[in-house]
């Protein structure tokens, strides 16, 4: 996968959450899931969106609800492939350097709100 941006640990965390099964991920939920402030999650999401890895759409579930809408994020097909590649690559280097492994990519209790 061609690397079009710097992949920080925070980016890896965001990608990992996006790889999960939750289909209604919005900024705050992602921030909570990875334990980082929203202020650092949104620039990552914007960057991922700019390179085409992430797609965002306004929530449409409740047309009667008033007030600001949430915006849901999910991986594009390209993002899906890219995220998998980046995560497995990083995991193997972490394994080599003896660091703690990232948890598995399947749904975790933490991110199902």
């Amino acid at each position, binding site marked *: 996968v061609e690397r079009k941006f710097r992949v920080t640990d925070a980016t890896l965390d965001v990608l990992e959450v996006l790889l999960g099964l939750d289909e209604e991920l919005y900024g705050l939920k992602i921030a909570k899931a990875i334990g980082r402030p929203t*202020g650092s999650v*949104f620039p990552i999401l914007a960057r991922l969106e700019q390179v085409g890895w992430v797609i965002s759409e306004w929530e449409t579930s409740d047309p009667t609800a008033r007030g*600001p*809408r*949430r915006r849901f994020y999910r991986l594009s*097909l390209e993002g899906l492939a890219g995220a998998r590649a980046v995560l497995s690559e990083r995991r193997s280097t972490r394994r080599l350097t003896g660091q703690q492994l990232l948890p598995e990519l399947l749904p975790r209790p933490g991110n199902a709100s």
Partner: protein
Amino acid sequence: MSPVVVAFVLTAVLLPLAVSEFRDWCPRLATGLTRWAARRLGDRQARTRYEEEWVANLNEVPGKLSPLVSAVGYLVAVPRMRWTLRRASEAVTAKPRQLPPPACPLTARGGELAALDGLLAHRRKKSRDAVALTAAINGMAGVGKTTLALHWAQRIKDRFPDGNLYADLHSYSPRPSLAPLEVLGGFLHALGVQAVHVPASLNERVSLYRSLVARRRMLIMLDNAATSDQVRLLLPDSPHSVVLITSRHRLSALDNAHVVDLDTLSVDEAMTLLREVAGGEQVDAEPQAARALVHLCACLPLAIHIAAGQLRRCPHWTISHLVDKLHNEQRPGGLARDLGNVRAAFDLSYQTLPADAQRLFRRLSTLPSPNFEQRQAALLAETTAEETEKILDILANAQLIIARPEDDLYRTHDLLLAYARELLRKEEPSYQPTAPCPSNSET
């Protein structure tokens, strides 16, 4: 009052009051700060999007002080976000120029052009609308919708500095019409999105297309639309862009579209057209026959073009000669409704073609798109490239197809394709294309 009492009042009464006041005021301060931060971002679309998105997120932060902390986080994120968003708008800089030049000159239609100009001028005044101005030209087959649209588009295209997009949805050709998925693929490609970045799913394509066009001032033409569903997803939320649709039907679900109805020409206008395409001298020499001819053509521009093509190909024919032949061709009953009484003009044109041109014309109806390349025609003609080119020239002379040398394509009209299909059924019912004809509409 002793200093002790003052100190007591300050610490035990006023300070808690102030703190509690501040705590109550905090969420509002946080919301205000977040909105302010979002408004520092990029362009108008990004500003409104993130303002709503961030406030929605902020509203879910519990407590009274935490929202303020989040708000400060948003404020701190602004410089990075601005950088990213600026990169995003620079990332794709292509200025597509997809509008084809009009294949036919425009005759009459002054009223319709003025109506379209009026829409554009009116839009200027209320440019606060968040959606693109949508104009739909409606009218029967062969009446000149595409010609009018292309002429108008050529006139106004320079007002759209970010370029123009064109898609022929060819809804009335034999094969299923072009789905929004394919059209969006072509548009994204034209907008400079690399093929590997064109998303696979419809939703993703729509949202990428909309976000790209939202920042731009573009003219978008959707030719030959049949259903609202075909075009709805292609309408951008861009107040500075204009969408021009041609269709045989009113597309009911397009509430905001301004409709321009295109009728057949008046007899005088049809005469003007005939004069332009067949030559003034011939028309002046036989004014009665010329009037009879435009009546036989139902004042339909397409039919008049074909009749004039016939006169050009047979220079020894007079207009009266052509009119007599057309009268003889007219058979009552059994005419396809679409073709109506212009069918005689088609029949005559077809019957005076050489056999190999007739055969190719019939077989064109098996092509997936009304736009085709010479090599596709060669497969149908079952002959060499040079021979095919000769036959295509004959068909172009008869106005049954239009050559588009600028993009190496030929084009035919849906109405003529319907006619060709009928001929194929009658004269070569067992014909199957020998090799699959690759579609040129894929991107």
